[in-house]
């Protein structure tokens, strides 16, 4: 016998758009993080109207409700930490409006990131935020997490490309914030909502800016014999005021794992490589490519390869974008950090990460967005070993503490979610968190929408982190 909630859900969206059997729910216990949480049920709405009713049902049954896109998130943002209804937006995946002339698009939240770019490529446009999971992740998820990606160094993260949103508030009201025309009068609610990790409203429509595809792209691979040299190079490129479109670092260990997997011709005997991209009008791109190559050589780059054509370029990027998958072939699990540091502190931070790895006896692979100081150390461990899991968290916390001590932050693009909520007090005082929580309480007063995210729970740390039934390593960044 179905519960009254299930009966109401089925009559709203149809029985085949509601999952509730334990074996069906299994997939939705996970996202791309090491966290797990089982929902009571999963629903697949197809219209905004249905989402409004779902919100009302959550209220009626006093049950938590959580939005979810493709489940590629890396901080547990889309997990039902307190159970309840998970609303999966994968069937709301229509591009509602393409306005090439004004470089705008209106999309439903379930549209896959790279599908939007593909749909506007014919007009020489793309959606600039490009998370490594862009072939799977959704625009709605990007909006919730304010996602970044390799090319957000020059082009900005999701929030820089979102103009307006249609929201279903926890009260069940439907409201539009922002405007497709720039500078809508009033407070920047769009700016508040993007990156609010699904804790203020469910988003049912997104108005985005589209960006012109650059005329010329130059992709360089700089090969270094020491990690220090590679990091000094990044600091120097930044200090000289050159903003590459992308500036990615892979250390030697990660590179060998990648090379074994994708066979892109990466050197197996180096300490680090930088994958650099500059773009723009041809003359500017060529000038910057020459300048960047010079800086690499000044810092003892053994070799600087320039991709000759788009095939070579794609191969280099294939290495970067499949790096997490490559590591997944080697280790049963890994823990990805997302700390950010000022770019001048890159060399010292890399040395510290190396030291922490040795101290705890873990192999740490480094692959990250060096250009904006956004680190993704991958700590390899065995998920079945509870002691290892505890030590991974300890090592990870030590890395994060170092990032904060350098004037950095705990998450650059993955979000706080349920993974880093306990770390929030490292950056924010109780009073500062209280002011932030006023926003959540203003929009989400009952707390039924995506509960126990971002804000630290009052419980002790041990209770918060889930048991080491960690997610298997999957190809994401």
């Amino acid at each position, binding site marked *: 016998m179905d519960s009254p909630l299930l009966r109401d859900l089925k009559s709203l969206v149809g029985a085949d758009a509601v999952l509730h059997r334990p074996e069906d729910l299994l997939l939705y216990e996970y996202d791309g993080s090491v966290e797990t949480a089982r929902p009571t049920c999963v629903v697949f709405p197809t219209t905004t109207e249905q989402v409004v009713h779902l919100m009302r049902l959550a209220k009626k049954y006093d049950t938590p409700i959580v939005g979810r896109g493709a489940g590629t998130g890396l901080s547990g943002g889309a997990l039902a930490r307190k159970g309840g209804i998970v609303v999966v937006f994968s069937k709301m995946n229509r591009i509602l409006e393409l306005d090439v002339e004004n470089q705008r698009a209106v999309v439903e939240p379930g549209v896959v990131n790279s599908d939007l770019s593909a749909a506007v490529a014919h007009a020489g446009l793309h959606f600039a935020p490009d998370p490594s999971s862009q072939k799977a992740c959704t625009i709605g998820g990007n909006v919730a*997490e304010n996602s970044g990606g390799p090319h957000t160094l020059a082009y900005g993260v999701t929030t820089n490309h979102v103009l307006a949103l249609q929201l279903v508030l926890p009260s069940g009201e439907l409201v539009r914030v922002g405007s497709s*025309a720039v500078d809508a009068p009033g407070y920047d609610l769009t700016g508040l909502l993007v990156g609010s990790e699904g804790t203020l409203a469910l988003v049912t429509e997104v108005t985005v800016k589209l960006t012109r595809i650059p005329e010329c792209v130059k992709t360089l691979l700089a090969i270094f014999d020491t990690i220090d040299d590679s990091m000094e190079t990044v600091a120097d490129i930044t*200090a000289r005021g050159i903003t590459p479109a992308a500036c990615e670092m892979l250390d030697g260990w990660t590179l060998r794992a990648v090379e074994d997997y994708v066979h892109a011709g990466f050197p197996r005997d180096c300490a680090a490589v930088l994958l650099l991209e500059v773009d723009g*009008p041809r003359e*500017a791109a060529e000038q910057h490519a020459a300048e960047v190559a010079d800086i690499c050589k000044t810092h003892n780059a053994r070799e600087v390869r320039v991709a000759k054509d788009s095939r070579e370029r794609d191969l280099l990027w294939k290495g970067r974008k499949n790096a997490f998958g490559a590591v997944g072939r080697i280790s049963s699990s890994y823990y990805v950090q997302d700390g950010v540091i*000022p770019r001048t502190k890159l060399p010292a931070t890399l040395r510290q990460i190396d030291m922490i790895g040795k101290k705890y006896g873990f192999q740490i692979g480094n692959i990250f967005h060096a250009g904006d100081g956004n680190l993704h150390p991958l700590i390899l461990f065995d998920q079945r070993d509870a002691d290892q899991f505890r030590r991974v968290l300890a090592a990870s916390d030590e890395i994060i503490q170092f990032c904060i001590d350098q004037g950095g932050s705990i998450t650059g693009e993955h979000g706080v979610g349920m993974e880093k909520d306990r770390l*929030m007090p490292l950056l924010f005082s109780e009073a500062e968190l209280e002011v932030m929580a006023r926003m959540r309480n203003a929009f989400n007063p009952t707390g039924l929408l995506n509960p126990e995210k971002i804000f630290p729970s009052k419980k002790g740390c041990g209770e918060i982190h889930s048991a080491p039934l960690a997610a298997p390593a999957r190809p994401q960044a």
Partner: protein
Amino acid sequence: MNGSSQIANILGAENVKTDMESLAAHAIAGKTPSEVVSPSSAAEVVEIVRHTASTKRAIVVCGARTKLSMGLAPSRYDVAVDMSRMNRVVAYDPGDLTLSVEPGIKLAALSRTLAEHGQMLPLGVPFSAHTTIGGTIASGVDAPQRQLYGTARDFLLGAEFVTGDGVLAKSGGRVVKNVTGYDLHKLLIGSLGTLGVITKLNFKTFPFPTNVRGFIARFRSYESAFDMRDRIARSPLLPMTLDIFSPGVARLFESAAGAGAAREAMPQGILSNDEWALTTGYSGNDSSLARYESELRKVAAECGAASVTIAHETLPAAWARKREFIPIALASSPATTILKIGVLPSKLKLVLNAVGGAGEKHQVPGVAMVRGVGVLYIALLPPDAGDESKQRVAKCVSEIQAAATQLGGHATVPWCPDAWKPTLNIWGAENPDWAEMRKVKNAFDPGAILSPGRFVGGM
């Protein structure tokens, strides 16, 4: 004991002013505060706000006082909080291109500090000789450089502020990429001091562009100028600025009001009094500059430009006037009324049709500055501030606002004579999301003591 003596105990008597002259200098729309207080730290701001809140008095925060007339007049106003003593650079790391400053620092002084390291903030905003960084952010004024760099929301990394109930809060940080917590600092941009007293602002800085040039194409009609704007948008070119000026702007820029913006006279042959002018700035090495020049010449010719000029856009006299369009316009009529309109770029022509129609019908002269991203500044320049002018301007404004709304845009009146505010719809058509904004306001300023009444919907 009255409020002022309590605050004097905290700040020192010399930082609390109650003399008539100081109070008059801080008046807004005829409302005069009962004291002007000048904190030197965030802790002092907290104390001021708590004391003021406990006595249920209202605060207006100010810096150089260049934009206090923006928005509606405050419904209550007891204490002016002058931030000009909080003018330190808290941290500047040129190697990392990040900056943390107190709000009272003058933008001009800050720009000099950044220039020493070959860097800048892309904030060529009006009133630039006097304005503070805090006032620039709180007012949300934009700059020509937004064409390439975006607006403050794209490079403000974090902020510290004091809420209306006296809690020191912060959001964001000092790194260029960060998703830790809600982006509360974005709410402060353009909030006119209604959410919090800003005590610190963190920015991403940018390398100062070298080899800057300007290209000016003059057209007989705005249709042709917009045609050129559209073609540039479809090209691979990435200019830093792109603004279109109406006929009549030349006269303003050459006038005494224009002379206030720059020491040098407005150079001849840049703008003309009977033509529309598209002005665009770009930078790069010699081959880049040559590319821009040849492509812009070609596009201008295809769009039927009457003539073109290539100049160093850094040409201080021309650049300063472009940046200072608003103050120049304000000084050009006893009752200048400025509309700011946001629309999709494809609707710019239709908006200008409506503007022209309304101006002609109600016999209100005016000039326009149009940003390529889809923002129009329409300066209505009535000959006097009399009743008849007021009626004409009011009709003209409301027709333009109706047209902007009908075209999917929005139109506000950031500047007009104080006495005209009750007659005009300062914030434009009410939007349903104002109800959500009210929630934000109530959360940050539960006692409604921060600039009450100035913001949208009288918030």
